[in-house]
């Protein structure tokens, strides 16, 4: 997934569309908006980001999971199998992005890239709703995908690269 910080206005449509799409509990959110301002008045720079699970290639949450509920699914997405999850929160402690929370039904929940939609040929809920079209989703191993093209043509960053987890959420600058 790519997230264009130049376009994002931090409106939280992604946050709320995700909440509705995934019927999340009252205090559950799988994505969130970060707005950072640097500098001193009147010389300021702002960056808005829509953040979520980074679906790392080397996910520490999966290594930390004692039951095998957290796993890397075929295709690379990191998922949690609800019935296998004991709610022990080891994954929550292991995730440096703070991407997970305990669902009101007891299991640990997080972004799934809306694979239930993707399998139907639809975009993830957040991507679908975004009024600024800042979010794009696609196959990074496919050079023809929108996300691959964006990463070839734009400067980008990932969050906490120093941890070496190979996150798959790219912020276009």
């Amino acid at each position: 997934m790519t997230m264009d910080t130049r376009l994002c206005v931090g409106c939280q449509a992604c946050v709320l569309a995700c909440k509705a799409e995934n019927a999340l509990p009252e205090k559950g959110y799988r994505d969130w908006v970060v707005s950072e301002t640097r500098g001193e008045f009147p010389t300021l720079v702002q960056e808005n980001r829509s953040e979520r699970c980074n679906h790392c290639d080397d996910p520490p949450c999966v290594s930390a999971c004692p039951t095998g509920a957290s796993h890397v699914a075929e295709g690379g997405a990191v998922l949690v199998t609800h019935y296998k999850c004991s709610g022990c929160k080891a994954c929550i402690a292991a995730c440096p992005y703070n991407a997970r929370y305990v669902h009101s039904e007891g299991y640990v929940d997080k972004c799934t890239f809306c694979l239930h939609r993707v399998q139907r040929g639809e975009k993830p809920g957040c991507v679908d709703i975004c009024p600024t079209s800042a979010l794009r989703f696609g196959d990074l191993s496919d050079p023809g995908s929108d996300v691959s093209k964006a990463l070839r043509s734009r400067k980008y960053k990932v969050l906490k690269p120093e941890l070496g987890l190979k996150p798959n959420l790219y912020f276009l600058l």
Partner: protein
Amino acid sequence: MKVNRRQFIKIGAGAVGATAFSGLTTRWWGLDKDPVHDPGTEGTKVVPTFCELCFWKCGVLAHVKDGRVTKLKGNPAHPLSRGKLCPRGTGGTGLLYDPDRLKRPMIRVEKRGEQVFEEVSWDAALDEVAGKMLAIREKHGPEALALFTHGFGGSWFSHLIKAYGSPNIAAPSYAQCRGPREVGYWLTFGQGLGSPEAIDMEHTRCLVLIGSHLGENMHNTQVQDMSRAIARGAELVVVDPRFSTAAGKARYWLPIKPGSDIALLLAWMNVIITEKRYDIDYVEKYTTGFDELRAHVADKTPEWAYPHTGIEPERIRETGRFIASFKPASLIHPGRRTTWYGDDTQRIRAMAIVAALLGSWGRRGGYLLPSKMSLPRFPYTAYAYHPREKADRPGSLYPLADETLASGLCDATIPGKSVYDIKAWLVYGTNLLQSLPDPRQTKEAIQKLEFIAAIDVLPVELTGWADVVLPESTYLERCDDLHVARYKEPFIAVRQPVVEPMYDSKPGWWIARELGRRLGLEDYFPWKDSVEYALARVKAGGYDCEELKRTGVIRGKPVPVTEEEGVALSFATGSGKIELYSKPLEMLGHDPMPVYRAPDEPPPGMFRLLFGRSPVHSFGRSTNNRFLALADPENEVWVNASVARDLPGLGGPLKSGELVVLVNQDGVRSQPVKAKVTQRIRGDCVYMVHGFGHTAKGLTFARGRGASDSELITRYKVDPIMGGTGMNVNFVRIERATASTT
């Protein structure tokens, strides 16, 4: 689950063709032995309708499963949403399923404002309202009843009140919001901007926002267009005392001193004219008064503007040149709520004049000239002509106002203030205690009324003051009139009921019709229901009813909307030209060209109170909507970081998150509210999002969260041209909440 590979590939690759197949063979996402969990929010029924979380009216696809609305998506067929929604639009379910909704009709049993009511039957409530309306008409004449309305469903009540015989129908969205803008553009170009604003943000190369904070103010289509423009390399120039989200994307942010925009605009005119950077042919061909304007701004140099605006002369010069370099695709955004300082029509005139110099009216990337699809009105019996002047006195006070002033009707409720007294209010969908300035004055007016009834979805402050409260169904439970949009791609959209009305709520058309029957106005309601009404109009227009029901929208052909596309520019002004110099203003004793007059300064230790929007909220209408408000539960007071280090009387630096109380120039104290200490605002003003600080006890979520700017707006400056209420003229000092409560 069987996956259709082609469908799957479409996601990653869009329409890039055969190359899309490369690299996918090992990436069958989610195809584990444990299937991907489906939250099951896809509707078994999907109903197209349009949104009412704000006034923009985006097309929505409502997903319904087991009789409940599971989610709301943007309707791809609808030109205003194009498949996308703003955060508020996703939150219709939070309104529909708000446990605090008005559930049954109620009649007040204690004195006004105490919010003690008795639930009654619809018959009893309607009989009461109609009985009072008949008595008012008998005793004072029909004009003694005023209708205040906001929102698309208000059309049924406007119709009712016109049939009843009163000319006094007003929406705060005019005199408290976009009124100065409509009048300013109309005086200059012979036409206003309407809603959605007829502007070509998508194709503009330079977008100038003057106080408009688009991106926080979430007009879906405009935010989409702004984003497309930015993606294509368009530049932004943002003039705002606050570093807005849009300022964060701008080439230039001009942190202007509040209230000095006219000075900046005059200096830009000076630069553009003296350096001959205007569109010479366009100005020659289409405008009148250029010589007068040139003389008028000859001494309004950037150096002159500097002490007024706080913007360095070189910066003014540079931005003036920059904006002009993109002409005519250089768009001065007209803004929306433009009631700031009481000289608002003149400020808008100044913006319109800069636009005229840039030749952007009627040009690609500037202002558009769209049209509506033709749709006959329902063939109602004609309303009886009402001979008396409206109570806001447009003829004698504000001849240029093109709509009725809500504040004027409120004033006319105080006995002896107008040509006759307003004695009864019908209030539809607007919380006048937050939407009119100075709620003390509004309460005083309410106490003078013989009768007040409110039609609403939620028990807001205003409904607490009503004698009768009628619970309306939400937009997801009702059919309203058709939306016939004036847009570059004209369309007709329908609001269809998605689910049955909950509780004992009723749709507005039903309430209006039942009142009409009791008032002897049944001839004005000759239809079974609003669906029959709407379909009759669609058929009369020769359109396909089935298509409208199925897709929610009938789209017209895109029409030429710019000179480049073949539109011949014409101007419905007195001169037939763009009026840089306004004779009508001169005749009425106003400045024919904008003149800058410095606003009052905040007294020492006080700050100008500015207010604006959150992307998640529509005024105070959504702050009790749990789906939305949990993501943005309270407002904060923005205070400049340097100033916060040494605020008078605080005895130490103010930190973000600390609770403060604002005290205005008249001693009115706000509810406690968190401070946001930030570099993002000037030191002479503070800022908060409007719509918080509810006190109505029925709003169990919103009550007591954040502070209400409305309570602090005890002063306003009336625009002498059109009667708008400039509300950015209040000053506050900051106290620590703990100190003030002990």
